[in-house]
């Protein structure tokens, strides 16, 4: 079997036993990048030489008898929203085209410390705003299952790269579903850790109170290994939680749900949900029951107001976070011809450098924070946020985890929702509550929709710092489905 078909854990074992070198593993994946990426456009930047250099360093350290981490030498693709000192960092925006950060994000630093080999930076919706990766200022990424469809977003480059066997692992960020939704529509595993469980330092901010770095992988254990590698307290991020990382790897190795109480969120069904998605969700419920879980229906009435609340809070924060892109210190500068004032240059640069979705959200947020509107919009949205957190708390009094479809539909065709922001926003309907409350949530594959044969994701939500529950339940579902399917769902994907 080709090295690119192997999981991260398998590759790590092969390298640890000396059967293959990190250079061989890296070269195999770089070859795959060259072969497949022209079709899926997952990467904004690939640095083959730097990747091989990192791999050589790992091999040298291993040869010297150094004790290496469990993912040393494993390739990874890194969402281009994390700063990297040795690669450009654009956040998918023209306003940062070619920017070379002078510092590494904490997540980047921890990837390096874990010995992961960074192949390159993946495409995303500009500033992580979107659900299709079509809002990238550079090009859209394509879904390996169907090249005419989106790979989800905003972390679509990362999901497509993993689903396309270009890399076993990738990083993402999840503000309203930007890891779970792309994972669901590409048939892979994507985890949003508890807010504050993974550091935001060096993550180019979209919405500070929601942004959460997390892992993508083709199986639950790999995701847990990556989760563990880059998570944990960071003194450079005040909102990072000063507590041990939940035992996610151990949980992924114990796929057992017997006696577990599982709540089905009543509100996430009905109109707007594709029948094939609902069918696969019902399969999942039955599967969990067959594994000994006690499944009950749970009502979370505030969840229906999560989407509007999110579209006030996230744009409000982004309107402020993106103010720093002003042409003064870095990035694009337009109109600086010696006759214009600083204010004019700022305005011209921002007009030219931001795409339409980013501008839309800056406008929305600026409005929502304006004096006279603040209480009605931002203030009200914060109250909704509190209600959602209370719904979660009440639900977790009754059950150990909550489940729902990850996203109401399978991957939609490129261009279908590009001019319909509301339709685009609905892709995050089920994922947003966990962001607003800061909970942990994972998406694992649960089959193919009957109508279109495209992958469907099951979302498993756990309480704050209950990340290990997501992995335990996710691993159980994965194991049971894979035995039913005779292998992973991805084997159904067309060859690229």
């Amino acid at each position, binding site marked *: 079997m080709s090295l690119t078909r192997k999981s991260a854990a398998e590759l790590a074992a092969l390298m640890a036993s000396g059967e293959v070198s990190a250079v061989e593993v890296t070269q195999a994946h770089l070859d795959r990048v060259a072969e497949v990426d022209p079709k899926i456009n997952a990467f904004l930047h690939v640095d083959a030489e730097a990747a091989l250099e990192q791999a050589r360093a790992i091999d040298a350290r291993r040869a010297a008898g150094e004790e290496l981490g469990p993912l040393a030498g494993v390739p990874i693709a890194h969402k281009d929203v*994390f*700063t990297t000192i040795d690669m450009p*960092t654009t*956040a998918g925006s023209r306003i*940062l085209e070619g*920017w070379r*950060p*002078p*510092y590494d*994000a904490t997540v980047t630093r921890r990837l390096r410390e874990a010995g992961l080999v960074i192949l390159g930076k993946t495409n995303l919706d500009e500033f992580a705003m979107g659900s299709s990766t079509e809002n990238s200022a550079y090009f859209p990424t394509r879904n390996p299952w169907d090249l005419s469809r989106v790979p989800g977003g905003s972390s679509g480059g990362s999901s497509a790269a993993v689903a396309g066997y270009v890399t076993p692992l990738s990083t993402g960020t999840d503000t309203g579903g930007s890891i779970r939704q792309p994972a669901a529509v590409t048939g892979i595993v994507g985890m949003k850790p508890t807010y504050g469980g993974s550091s*935001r*330092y*060096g*993550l*180019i*901010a979209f*919405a*500070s*109170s929601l942004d959460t770095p997390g892992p993508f992988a083709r199986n639950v254990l790999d995701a847990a290994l990556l989760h563990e590698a880059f998570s944990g307290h960071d*003194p*450079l*991020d*005040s*909102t990072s939680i000063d507590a041990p990382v939940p035992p996610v790897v151990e949980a992924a190795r114990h796929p057992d749900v017997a006696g577990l109480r599982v709540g089905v969120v009543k509100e996430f069904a009905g109109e707007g949900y594709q029948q094939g998605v609902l069918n696969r969700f019902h399969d999942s419920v039955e599967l969990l029951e067959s594994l000994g879980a006690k499944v009950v229906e749970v009502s979370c009435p505030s969840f229906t107001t999560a989407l509007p609340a999110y579209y006030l809070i996230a744009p*409000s*924060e982004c*309107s*402020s976070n993106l*103010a*720093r*892109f*002003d042409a*003064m*210190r*870095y990035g694009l500068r337009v109109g600086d011809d010696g006759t214009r004032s*600083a*204010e004019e240059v*700022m305005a011209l640069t921002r007009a030219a450098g931001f795409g339409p979705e980013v501008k839309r959200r800056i406008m929305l947020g*600026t409005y929502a*924070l*304006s*004096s006279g509107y*603040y209480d009605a919009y*931002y203030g009200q949205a914060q109250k909704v946020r509190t209600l959602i957190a209370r719904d979660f708390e009440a639900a977790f009094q009754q059950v150990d985890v909550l489940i729902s479809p990850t996203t109401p539909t399978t991957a939609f065709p490129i261009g279908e929702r590009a001019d319909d922001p509301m339709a685009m926003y609905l892709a995050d309907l089920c994922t947003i509550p966990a962001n607003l409350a800061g909970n942990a949530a994972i998406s694992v594959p649960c089959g193919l929709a009957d109508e279109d044969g495209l992958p469907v994701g099951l979302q498993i939500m756990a309480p704050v710092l209950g990340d290990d529950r997501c992995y335990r339940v996710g691993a159980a579902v994965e194991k049971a489905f894979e035995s039913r399917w005779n292998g992973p769902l991805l084997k159904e994907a067309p060859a690229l």
Partner: protein
Amino acid sequence: MTTTTTLMPYDEALERYEPVLGLETHVELGTASKMFCGCATTFGAAPNTQVCPVCLALPGALPVANEKAIESTIRIGLALNCSIASWCRFARKNYFYPDMPKNYQISQYDEPLCTDGYLDVEVDGTVVRVGIERVHLEEDTGKSTHVGGATGRIHGADYSIVDYNRAGIPLVEIVTKPIEGADRLAPEVARAYVTELRELMRALGVSDVRMEEGSLRCDVNVSLMPRGSSEWGTRTETKNVNSLRSVERAVRHEIERQAAILSEGGRIVQETRHFHEDTGTTTSGRSKEEAQDYRYFPEPDLVPIAPDPAWVAELKAALPELPSVRRKRLQQEWGVSDLDMQAMHNADAIDLVEATVAAGAPPADARKWWMGELARRANEAAVPLSDLRITPDQVARVCALVASGALNDKLARQVLEGVLEGEGTPDEVVASRGLQIVNDEGELSRIIDEVLAANADAADKVRGGKIAAVGALVGGVMKASRGKADAARARELILEKLGVSA
């Protein structure tokens, strides 16, 4: 465009209108590192050398609050008799300006750390209680320099350059409640408030409060209401008034300017005004009539501040003696009059005198030298007393030399001059300038004999009982010894030689 500003004489203005003041003071804290990152805060470093991803607002960088700055702010609040919030948050104040890297300032909005206190200040022997509305913590901006153009302001400049060393330095904003009833003493009250605040900061050790370096900056709000009215007028805010004297002058000028406008039926424009040190006048800056919308919202990158009440109590118990209390104590210890104490206070001499006394000088001597000869020298050089090149220890040494009889006052002045001119310590100056009092009896006797011989008339008068005439003879001895003789001993010897008992 130039406009002539009409002023109404101060007395007339006060006859017709009553001023209401408000003071907003920004104090740069003297923490070793910045408010939200680890960068150094050294004043005067080469531009843009004390910067990092956080204070330059590079994409992805995040703030972490400086605990020492929070502690200092709480101590300031406690010293100003404020309530300390048990839970509060930072907020973002959003506006675009090139010297503000994030294009928002991390500040505090409706949840300040300290609220509702007061500071008592003394003006002309009367204690005025100035209410404190709030004390909050924020970060400073970078510093823009506008190059070209006549005024140094952005208007008319060829280009601007920005130094981000200052960006992110912790800044405490102290806002008074409206100060009513100060009446014609309003300018003095404003000055006394800022003076007292500055001393408080120094006593707390939280800032070097150097107005000329901008580590203490004051915005002065003034409005007038007609006598008999209780409805406040429209206020103006005069920015960055950079000395104590300017605080007083700015208030006075605004009173005279606004009174002239109001008396002609005009309307005060709510605006920011700039104070000009050279002319003592203010000119119009940015209009605030179209109120800027700062879109404040709670800072999501920082967790709330929730000071432990036990910690706050500890800080309160450990507050140093406050300046007004200390002044009262010192006044008693030194046994000086209200007037003398006030003079020392105004001259910023209290610390210096105290240090000199601590170095062993009698309080009266320490005060005499600092407020006399040294104050005169400082005044001539137009520098603050504390900038003179002499230490309290050295002044104490001069006092000791006088007390021991090794120097007289005249020689002591020469020693002080030598020290100020960098000739070394008092002892070194005495040695190098040869300023020892002549206490060799043989030498003194020889000089007296010469003087008596040269002034036979005066000697005869003394012999004849006119003791007062001895003064001229002593003067002659001092002159002949070039001031080095001990005048008292010379007098004794002269009288002895002339056979007169005093």
